[in-house]
Each structure stands twice: as C-alpha cells, then as structure tokens.
C-alpha cells in the first residue's frame, strides 16, 4: 500500500514539477509535498502504521524518495529563482551603476604631458623656472637690446623697471646653461604672460614649452630631424611640414615650422588663412650672443632651441574656437577631457 503510494507520489511530483515556471509554482509544490502536512511528510506518517518487518525497507525507500525529490526540488527552485523568467524576484539590470567620479587633469596639462613624453623619449630633461622674471633673463641675455623693436614682438607686463612677467619660457634656457656646462638637452614648460587684449584668439596668459640642445656639432640638420620626429609622433606620421626663415633675437638662423592644415589638408581654409599651412613652433640655432651671456664658447659649442605654444596646439587638436574657455574652469568643460 505505502509502497504504491511512494511510486504514485514520486510520479505525481515529477509531473507537477515539470510545469513549474515561477516561484509561485515552486511554493505550491513545496506546500503540496514538503510542508508539515505535505504528501511526503504524510508518507512518513504512514510509515508508522506499517508492519515491523517492512519498516526498514520501506523506510529506506522513503528516505531515498525524499532525498531524491527534495534535491530535485531544490535544483528546480534554484533554477527558477535565478532565471529571468522568475517574475517575483526579477532584478532590473538596466538601472544605472553607482556613480564614482574620477577627476581629470586640465586639457592643457594633458597636451603638455603628451609633448613632454615625446621629448623625454628623445633624451630631453625637463626644467622649470620662475614666472616673475628679471629683464635680464627675459630679454637682455636673450639678445633683445633695450630700446629695440624686437621687444615689440612680446608685449610685456612690468612690475617694476627691471622685473616683469616672463613673456616666454626661453629665460629658463639661460638659467639652465648658467647652472651646467654642455651638453645641455632639456625642455622647459611653463606659463607666460603677454600684455594683449583678451579675445577669443588671445589671452593675457598662456603656456609654452621651450627646448634647447647644446653640444659640440649640433647642426640645423639635427634641429630639423628632432622637430620632425616630434611632429610626426604628435600629429601623425603622414604629416607634411616645412621650415620657413623667421626672426627671433636669441636664435640665428631662425625658423618657423609649419605643418599641413589638419582641417583642409593643405587646400586652404579659414583656420590656416587660406595658406594650407599651420605654424606650430619657432626654432633656430642658438645665437652666439646668448652663449656669450652664459660663458659658453660659441666656437666649440653649437646648439638649437625651439618653442611652442600649448594653447594653440590644444585649440587645433580639439577644435576649440575660443581660448578663454581654457581659463573659465567651467566643470562642464573640464569634465570632457
């Protein structure tokens, strides 16, 4: 009798559980079979009435049944509860994750980082210098004679007769050469100031990277090689470039380096003023007069120097049209980089 019941209940359990599709169904099965008055418990109740001789066998059978169905039940329950078709316990994975804000460096710092890492790879050190400079370091030692129109190239903020806000990072070249004998190979990033009306195209303060390499036998050809290597690493290896004669008091010969306009690819557009070229840096061979100021023998040593504006590079690279946005520090801008 009980033996039959065991088989029956087993069959009924397997048939019931087949149609289980939700936790509600699972709960119904639990109540039907495994609750205190459930069918499985009832079988154990029934075992009490079985004759003594059959008890061990049936008891064993009953235990096997219970283990089998209950472990299968747990398995199904587990599957239902973790499956997405289990509606009661559904987790909405589409809700947003917790928002952790990672900060960021200013885009000008990031641009400078890129420039720095390229030059460090080319064997350059990195040096700093003060922003509040003497006339001597900013102009005189860089071969800008007093009362010379070359000074008009850099409108200057003065704090006194002899002190000013540096108009370029080039004075760090002098400071470096005063401290050490050749070879000198370093870049000098930093902030510079120009007494120019603030507009979308110019700001009274901006950033530059200067560079210098002095040793025996440094040539213009090497200057070209180094700067082309930099430009190709920074702007892409398919870049076209040209070196154009220019004038800086502290270099002779002097040059400006142009690259093909990234926007029109040389066809001519507003950004490049229809020339197809964009000026990216100024450079040249260190003027012997500069060597005189730092007591380097200009017959023995030659060197090249270069300088570039970081804002200009970032403006071009990210298509920013107004330089003032760099210094607005609007978080909506800062967060984009």
């Amino acid at each position, binding site marked *: 009798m009980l033996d039959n019941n065991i088989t029956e209940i087993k069959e009924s359990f397997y048939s019931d559980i087949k149609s289980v599709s939700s936790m509600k169904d699972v709960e119904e099965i639990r109540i039907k079979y495994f609750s205190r008055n459930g069918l499985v418990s009832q079988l154990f109740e029934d075992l009490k009435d079985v004759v003594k001789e059959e008890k061990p066998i049936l008891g064993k059978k009953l235990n096997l049944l219970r283990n089998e169905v209950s472990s299968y039940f747990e398995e199904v329950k587990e599957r239902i509860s973790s499956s997405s078709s289990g509606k009661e316990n559904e987790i909405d994975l589409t809700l*947003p994750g*917790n*928002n*952790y*804000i*990672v*900060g*960021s*460096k*200013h885009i*000008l*710092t990031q641009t400078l980082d890129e420039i*720095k890492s390229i030059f460090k790879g*080319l*064997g*350059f*050190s*990195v*040096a700093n210098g*003060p*922003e509040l400079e*003497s006339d001597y370091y900013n102009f005189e030692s860089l071969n800008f004679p007093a009362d*010379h*129109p070359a000074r008009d190239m850099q409108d200057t*903020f*003065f*704090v*006194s007769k*002899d*002190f000013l806000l540096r108009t370029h990072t080039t004075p760090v070249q002098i400071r470096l050469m005063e401290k050490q004998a050749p*070879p000198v190979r370093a870049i000098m990033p930093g*902030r510079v100031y120009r007494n120019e009306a*603030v507009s979308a195209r110019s700001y009274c*303060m901006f950033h530059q990277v200067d560079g210098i390499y002095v040793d025996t036998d440094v*040539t*213009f*050809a*090497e200057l*070209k*090689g*180094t700067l*082309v*290597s930099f430009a190709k690493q920074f702007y892409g290896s398919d870049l076209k470039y*040209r*070196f*154009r*004669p*220019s*004038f800086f008091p502290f270099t*002779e*010969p002097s*040059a400006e380096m142009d690259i093909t306009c990234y926007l029109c690819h040389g066809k001519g557009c507003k950004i490049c003023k229809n020339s197809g070229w964009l000026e990216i840096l100024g450079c040249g*061979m260190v*003027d012997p007069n500069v060597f005189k100021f730092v007591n380097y023998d200009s017959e023995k040593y*030659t060197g090249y120097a270069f300088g570039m504006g970081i804002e200009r590079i970032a403006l071009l690279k990210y298509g920013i049209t107004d330089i003032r946005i760099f210094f607005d*520090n*609007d*978080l909506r801008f*800062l*967060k984009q980089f």
Partner: protein
Amino acid sequence: MKISLSWIKEFVDLNDISIEEIVAKLTMSGLEVEDVLDQSKLYKNFIVGFVKTTEKHPNADKLTICKVFDGKDDLQVICGATNVSAGQKIVFAPIGSEIPNGNFIIKKAKIRGVESNGMICAEDELLLSDDHSGIMVLNENLEAGKPIIEALNLNDVILEIAITPNRPDALSHIGVARDLAALFDRDLIIPEIKLNEVKDDIKKLASVEIEDTVNCPRYVAKVVKDVQIKESPKWLKDRLEKIGLRPRNNIVDITNLVLHECGQPLHAFDLDKLSDHKIVVKSTKSETNFTTLDSKERKLPVNTLMICDGNREVAIAGVMGGENSEITELTINILIESAYFHPSSIRKTSKALGLSTDASYRFERGSDPNITKYAAERCAQLVAELADGKVANGIIDVYPEIITPKEIELRFSRTTKILGYEVAPEKIKNILSRLGLAIKVLDEDKLLVSVPTFRPDIEREIDLIEEIARINGYNNIPMVSKINITLEQKTDETEVDEKIRQAATALGFFEMINNPLQSENDAKLTGNPIRIANPLSADMECLRTSLLSGALITISKNIKQGVKGLKLFEIGDAFKKMTNGEIKTFSDFTETQNLLLAISGNEQNKGWNTEEKDSDFYLLKGLINSFLSKISLDNVLIDSYYSTANEIYAYYLTKNFKEVELGRGGKLKNEVLQQFDINQNVYCFEFDLSALKSVQSNSKTYTDPLKYPKIIRDFAFILDNSVKYLDVKEFIKKKSSQLLKVVSVFDVFESDSLGTDKKSLAFTLEYFDESRTLTEEEVEKDFNNLIALITKEFNAQLRGK
C-alpha cells in the same frame, strides 16, 4: 606691408615667373606673404555699367531702382547709395560675381518686392579703399560693358608681407626686389636719377646744422623752387592707393612714393615757413607742446629729437612734421629732408608719444644712412617732373662721421658646421653678391664680406650664414634622423607635480587653471600683492598671493552654472611682495609653487541607491591624508588643529614638518564666501608645494602580511563634550600593551539621553603580534586595564556594560 607686384617688376625682371612661385619663394625666404590680392582674378566679372534711369523704390525710402546698361542689355538693379543718379558710369557686379570684401556672390534677388539683377559697387566693397560713403563713380568716357580690369587698369597683384623686425631693408619695394633678385638669381635695377638743376645755389637758399650728431648722424636737404601744389597724376595716386595709402597732394605723394620705393622716409617743408630758411636738429631741453600736421597738440618730453628752424620746432624728427611748416596749396618753395636718425632715439620718441608712423617705423628699425642722398635726389627729380619745380643747384649734406660698410669674415667650414650640410662656395658667393654684399676671397675657406649699411641686421658671421641658409632654402637643409644619446642622468623637475596630479585626479578632483592676474581686492586676501605697472584692466592689476581667491571665483561661477558638487585642484605659482619699495631683486618678492584642493557641495551626486553626502571638514581631512599617502608623505607631516577662526577659515588644520607649516586649510568663513558670492560651504586646503617637495618622503619598504590572527575588541565611553578624540586615542596608545597595534573610532554620538554636554565615543582596538598567536587572557587583561584607566582619566563612563 603691402607690396605691388607690378611696381616690384620695375626693379627686377620677373615676367616669366608665376605669382604662386613668387609668393612661395618670398615666404620660404623669410618674407612671409600673408595675403595675395590678385586683382585680375578678383575683378574678373566686374564691368563698367551705365545708369540710364533711376526711380524711387515703391516700398523703401532709401533704395533706388536703376536701369543699368551693361553693354548689351538694360538690367533692373536696386541700389542703396544716395549718390546714384542717371547718367553715371559705375562699377557693375553682374549676377554670379563675388564681392571681394564680403566673399558673397551676387544672385538674382527680390529686394522689398522688386527684382534686382546685380549690384552697383562702392570702393570698400571692391577693397579699393575703405570708403563706403557711396558708390564709386567712374569717368563718363568709359565704355559700358568694358571689364574694369582694363577700364581701371586693375591688373596688379598686391602682396601683404609680414616683415620681421630685423629686416628694415625689406620695408620697401626695392628692398623686397633685392631679395627676389637673389632668390631668382637676377639683376636688381635701381632707377637712375637725372636732375636738371637751375642755377640758384642751395647753400644760398637754406642751411642745415646738427647739434645732436649722436641721434642725427646725417641730414641731407634738397631745395626745389616754384612748385605747383596740385593733385597727383593718376598713375601716382593708383600706385599709392594700391598699397593702402591715401593720396593728398603731389609733394606729399612723391615723398610717400620714394619712401615705399627705396625705404627712406622723407619730409617736405614749406621753405618759406622756415625762419631764416634754416634747419637745426636738436633735442628739447624742457617739456614742449607741439602741434603735428594731423592738427594734434602733443606734449613732448625732455630730450625729444626735433627739427627746428631759426627759432622754433618744425617737426618731430623721424616721426611727424609740424603743422607750422607743412606744405599747403600756397607753398612755392620746398625743402626736402632726407636724414638718418639713430633708431633708439626715434623709438623712444614714438613710444613716449604713442605715435607710430611709416617714417618712425622704419627709422626705429634702422634705415640706411647712405641712401639719404639718393632718396633726396630721387624726390627732387619727381618734384621737378610732377610739380613743375625747379631744383636748386647742389645738395646740403651734413654728415660729420661717415658710416661705412662693416667687414665680416665668413668661413665655409663654419657654414657647414652650423647648417649641417655644405653649400658650394660658388653658390655662397653668388647669394651674397645678389643680396648686394661685396665679397673678397681671403683663402680657400674664407671670404671677406663687406656689408652695406642698408643691412644693419648683418653684424657677424652667423648672420651671413643665415642669409645663405634662407636664400638657398631651408628645405635644402637635410634632416638628421638619428638622435645622439647622451649618457648623463636625465632629470624631470615636473615629476612630483605629475604624481600629485595623478593622486588628485584619482581622488575625483578636476584640475583648474586660473588666471594669476587678479583684482587687488582678491589678491590681498592672502598676502601683500605685487602690482602690475601696466595692467590690462583693474580686475587684473595684481598677482595672486595664493591660489585661494582664484579657486573661489571658479567655485562661484560653477555654482551659478548649476554645478554644485565640486572637487577642484590647481597647481600654480603665487607671489608675495616682501618689500615696501620697488622690486629690484629676486629677494624683494617670493614666488612659490602652490597646490590647492577645494571641495564644496555634494561629494557624490545622489544616485538611486546612494545617499547624498555633503562635503565637510572630515571629507577634506580624509582626502588630504589619502592624497599625502599617494605621494608617500602621510606619516611624515604633523597636524595642528585650530578650532577658532582666522581671517580666512572658520576652523582649520595645518600640516607641518619639523615646526614648519607646509599647508593649511579648513572651512571657509562665511564673510569670505560672501565676498565671492558663494552661498554654500567651501573647504579648501593649500600647500606650499615648493616646500612640500623638499620634504623627504618616507621610502617604501615591504612588510609581510600578518600570519597570525588579530583579536579585536570594542568599547564605548560616555565623555564630556570637551574631551577630544585624539587625546583619548593617544592616551590609549600610551597606556596599552605593545600588542595593541591599531586604535580607531567607529562611532561618535551626541544626545541629551547621555546627559548634558556629553558624547559617546566608540573605539575598535586591534591586538596582534607578528610572531605569534595571542591568548584571550593577555588581551582581556590589557583591555580591562584600559577601561579602568580611561574611566578615571577622562571621568568617563563605559557604555553598555
């Protein structure tokens, strides 16, 4: 500077060379062509039109409906100019033509309901001048339908060239032509002068005396009598207009022509207005008022170089003439001045007066002392031709000390050493000769180069090397593509800054870059500011004394934009004045590199499963400590706490190294925040980064992870509110056994239920030993001992037991 190509071609034959090639060569030799205005392209669609009839526009008072004959058809054209009238010959822009000054194309259009089939042009629209007072009215004899390129002779090419300050020689057409002659290896043709002089001896008509021969080394004068002051001929007016000059009268126009031809500024005086017919060049002895020929009265400082006559000033030397001696319609006899002034003297005057003219621009860059005679004679010749003048016999040339060409030695080997490639000696000689330099071969490697006075920029061998390099073309310089490695140690002085930026951004801070130029009010918040002597504006008249006010400006701006949760940092220099007087040395001020961290508003934006958390002092303190641990300075610096306000902070802490304060920060006082219009709490911390960098960071050493279990105990005490956490913690550490390794607070609770002015502090104690497992007994003993001691020391009551 504007250069007319047709004018240039009078001095060098370039007829077989394309405009593109000329432009490219100039740019690639250092005379950068910034703009090319090719008239035959620009005006190719424009024709002469004939206005047959005009009538009022029915729907607009200011518009006129014109019937314009274009040589073939009558077209209806709407015109907005008031000077349009029937019978005029005008410049007509047919449909499809592009207007030069606006880059727009004329289309068939309806203007206020009436069809218009083209446009009648004004001078400014054609870039012929800046005149927009009305349409351009042409000679009535011109034939309708004729292209204006022919009718108005608009077939020139105008180049806008940027001349660097070292090249005064290139500030003229002959100067640019000289470079082109070298670039294309051609001859430079300089106009010859043929003068028909009358008998009158110049020495009897005028005299010149130089008192200040330092600032005026040479003064040349020519006199022309019986001149007819009138309008210049068309060719001369055209020539000046093309390069952006406004024609005035024949004499003034001729002086301008000669200036732009050969670079020598000239001035023409009305000879009869010069008292004693005399010129004296001298400097002012006292401050003087003087009216220049633009009718402006100017205050001249002492030591301004002046041109005077027998008893008064008549011109500011090298800058501008005076009204009292200028050429007018009544002028009969003129004195032409062609002088050489010392560059720095003219520059000083020009700067002091804020007055830059074509003349001063050239003199301050360095004109050619030895072209003065040529220029004066050239001018006299043209005055004779175009003003019917009679040139007086002879010339006055006061030139006490003749300035001779410089002689420089040039080594071919040095040229190679600088440029990195060899330019053939023959090529070098040719380039230098074409540039007007005289050469003499000294030996195989050496030339002696004589540099004419029109090239003041060439002073040394290196300057000659530059000339060779730029004329031969920088693109011909090879490129060395291998880099020499130097084995010396490389340094990076920005390395620590980078670490700091990494740590700050990892902690959620955004980097700002604020303008160090501030208003005095903002700058003096944190120190004695340095003033800018020539500021752009009052809000940028001082240098910042710390990064604080810049940060507060930024925070204020962002809050107004609706961004309220802010974590910002900046690395930058701050400046403090250390003297009461003028800054004369580097010790009169300090410049320190600072680091500022600022937080305000929500620390994290509220999410759907997270709570909003406002920034507070403890967040600031925690961030600063995390930040210091990232740069390995966490256990090196000592904190000091200040719970009473100073001028900036309501309360704050300082970070110190061996008694020296390296940074401070806390909660900003409301008064300060109000100054910046900020209405939420702000917490800032600012380090002197220069000082922080000098502190040796704790070097990292490895310790094994703990192998034995910890025993952890908690207790909480009810204490007086005045008892500080740190005091209890230090007491515990002092009194406990060596086995207690970590003491931390896990709960702070204040409530009246604890009693008035009471609080509860709950501590977690971690006991462990690196070499063995502890027994419960030894921990329990120490723990109970601590409870007894704390209870007694702080009048505390153990909670929950």
